[in-house]
């Protein structure tokens, strides 16, 4: 009889607990065996700390994740919390798909970097999580062979060009510069540091007109093309990195994943990393990142806010960065951890983030990106002059933005 009573009581209790539980659907991209267990551990910890909230993770691939997100949002079945790349936020936000969390994150605004990438129309639509930037990698061996001191790292454009050409002259199989082929979503990221460092901008200050073909932009593209023509190893990012690791390229621009590769594959290569050169002194790099946003249609905004704050907390960022070997946490506190300050290569990234710029947060960004990339392609691989190519892009960007 007593047993039965206990059984009934437990049944009722579990029932009521079950009723109070909120379930959050979270869609995220970190699925490789290095980072996925940490994602799970962070979620487990969150559930332990918040017994009334359960989190379901759905894994997305980098190649097709966007489609799945768009299809779900389009049919009104999007998840409560979604990881979005910074270049998608404006488009989702402009269509009212994301929750405005401005008021809820004010307290945190000074402790994290990257808010600008998630701010559209003066409102914040996502919490910065893992940022992404790129630095200059240099092969010390080749620099030495070309007659440079090991303490040397090109600091500005003339030095970079000279060093790249000198390395190119070492022999048929040596290249000074890793130049991306027409690779969607990658090529423009390589050019933008040159564009920004030279003082070029996408729009006029009032944001109304595209000035992508300003003199400064044209000069930047001309210089980029010069590097490409005189010393470039042309390939996709992967083969450029392969060739760099095989000791065939002097300088490439790459991200933190290259550090991970060198470690995992136990590559023996003497390399240096540092800021990307600008016209006269070190320039600006590209800043992008992964953000956690809340679906406007979600019924669990409070639980979702709690969850994204938990995932992006300094401790959890540090934990995740260590597991995944990401070098760009958005948390300023995490950036000051000895894990980053003690390693010169990771430090190069932390430093570069400070002087990195991000593309405009514009609902037409994908079109802008596409046109910019076409212009770079036309200049590098087609027959258009840089000025011509950029002017073309400017016209088409202006048209696309005027439509709506």
């Amino acid at each position, binding site marked *: 009889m007593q047993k039965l009573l206990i059984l009934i009581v437990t049944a009722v209790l579990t029932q009521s607990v079950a009723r109070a539980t909120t379930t959050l659907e979270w869609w995220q991209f970190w699925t490789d065996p290095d980072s996925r267990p940490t994602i799970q551990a962070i979620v487990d910890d969150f559930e332990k700390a918040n017994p009334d909230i359960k989190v379901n993770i759905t894994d997305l691939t980098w190649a097709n994740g966007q489609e799945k997100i*768009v*299809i779900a*949002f389009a049919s009104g079945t999007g998840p409560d919390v979604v990881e979005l790349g910074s270049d998608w936020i404006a*488009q*989702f936000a402009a*269509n009212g798909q994301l929750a405005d969390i401005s008021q809820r994150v004010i307290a945190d605004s000074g402790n994290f970097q990257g808010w600008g990438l998630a701010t559209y129309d003066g409102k914040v639509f996502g919490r910065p999580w893992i940022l992404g930037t790129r630095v200059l990698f240099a092969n010390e061996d080749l620099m030495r062979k070309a007659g440079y001191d090991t303490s040397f790292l090109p600091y500005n454009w003339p030095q970079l060009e000279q060093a790249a050409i000198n390395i190119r002259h070492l022999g048929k199989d040596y290249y000074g510069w890793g130049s991306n082929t027409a690779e969607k979503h990658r090529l423009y990221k390589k050019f933008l540091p040159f564009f920004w460092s030279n003082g070029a901008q996408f729009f006029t200050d009032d944001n109304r007109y595209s000035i992508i073909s300003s003199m400064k932009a044209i000069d930047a593209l001309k210089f980029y093309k010069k590097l490409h023509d005189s010393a470039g190893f042309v*390939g996709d990012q992967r083969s450029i990195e392969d060739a760099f690791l095989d000791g065939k390229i002097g300088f490439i621009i790459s991200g933190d994943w290259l550090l991970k590769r060198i470690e995992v594959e136990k590559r023996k290569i003497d390399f240096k990393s540092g800021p990307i050169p600008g016209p006269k002194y070190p320039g600006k790099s590209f800043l992008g990142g992964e953000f956690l946003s809340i679906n406007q249609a979600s019924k669990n905004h409070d639980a979702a806010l709690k969850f994204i704050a938990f995932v992006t907390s300094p401790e959890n960022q540090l934990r995740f960065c260590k597991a995944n070997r990401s070098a760009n946490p958005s948390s300023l506190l995490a950036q000051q951890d000895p894990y980053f300050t003690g390693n010169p290569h990771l430090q190069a990234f932390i430093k570069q983030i400070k002087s990195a710029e991000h593309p405009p947060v514009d609902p037409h960004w*994908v079109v802008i990106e596409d046109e910019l990339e076409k212009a770079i392609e036309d200049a590098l691989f087609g027959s258009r002059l840089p000025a011509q190519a950029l002017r073309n892009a400017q016209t088409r960007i202006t048209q696309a933005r005027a439509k709506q």
Partner: protein
Amino acid sequence: MRAHRGIALALGLPWLLTFGLFWAFPMVYSLFMGFTDHQLLAKSFQWVGLDNYRALFRDPDFVSSLKNTFVFVLGTIPFTTVLSLAMALLVNRQFRGRGLFRAGYFLPSITSLVVISLIFTNLYSRGGYVALLAHVIGLTPPENGFLYDSGTALYAIMAMDVWMAVGYYMLIFLAGLKAIPEELYEAAEINGASPLRQFVSITLPMLRPVTLFIVVINSIKSFQIFTEMFVMTKGKFDTATTVYFIYDTGLTTQFKFGYASAAAYALFAIIGLFSLAQFILFRRRQEYSW
């Protein structure tokens, strides 16, 4: 006769159900969307009539995607068809090791398209095996690899497609060859017909339905070529085909689903006309030559 009609319908029921339950709605839905300005993330859309279709044929990206698609279709179908028939004839007769050759030729057809595309991305790269081969026979491969050159990228993908498809169509030809009754050849033999004559007046006509299948299916598939470009070139270097265009405008870059649906139905009409022409060309002849 009425009983027959009942049977005919009963036998077609599984397809009727599948089509009705799963595919009729998607077809009608996307056809309808082609007449709207539906943008995937927007909360509302408007009827725009034929605007999308008008805009399409003024869109240089769409027009060039059509051109690339036609180059692909017209450049691969004849090769695939003739080669797979030749291979089927080659491995049809009994000889030692036949199973091995058949399995070998068929192997590419059972490997996933994504994987094959990745393999060839590597083979076609700068310094890859194909470049090496080109050097050996005295040609100069493009400096940045075959896929990163507007002059070669599309042809490289076409060659891969032929390579990949011939094994499967060979198999269908083989099955088709088995449907030809031996008596026909025996009768021809008695009449003193040469092997070539037998091929032209028995094998080819008897293979007509199977050939029609191969040509129609291969055309439809080729008009919708996409995955190869998605994995290998992302539509760059003049390889953007129409389905790539649809994917790009509809599902990734701009989410212009209405516009992309219109493009899909424009392509649909083109494929339809093309297939119709093939059906007419291959119209079934009731009488056999022997």
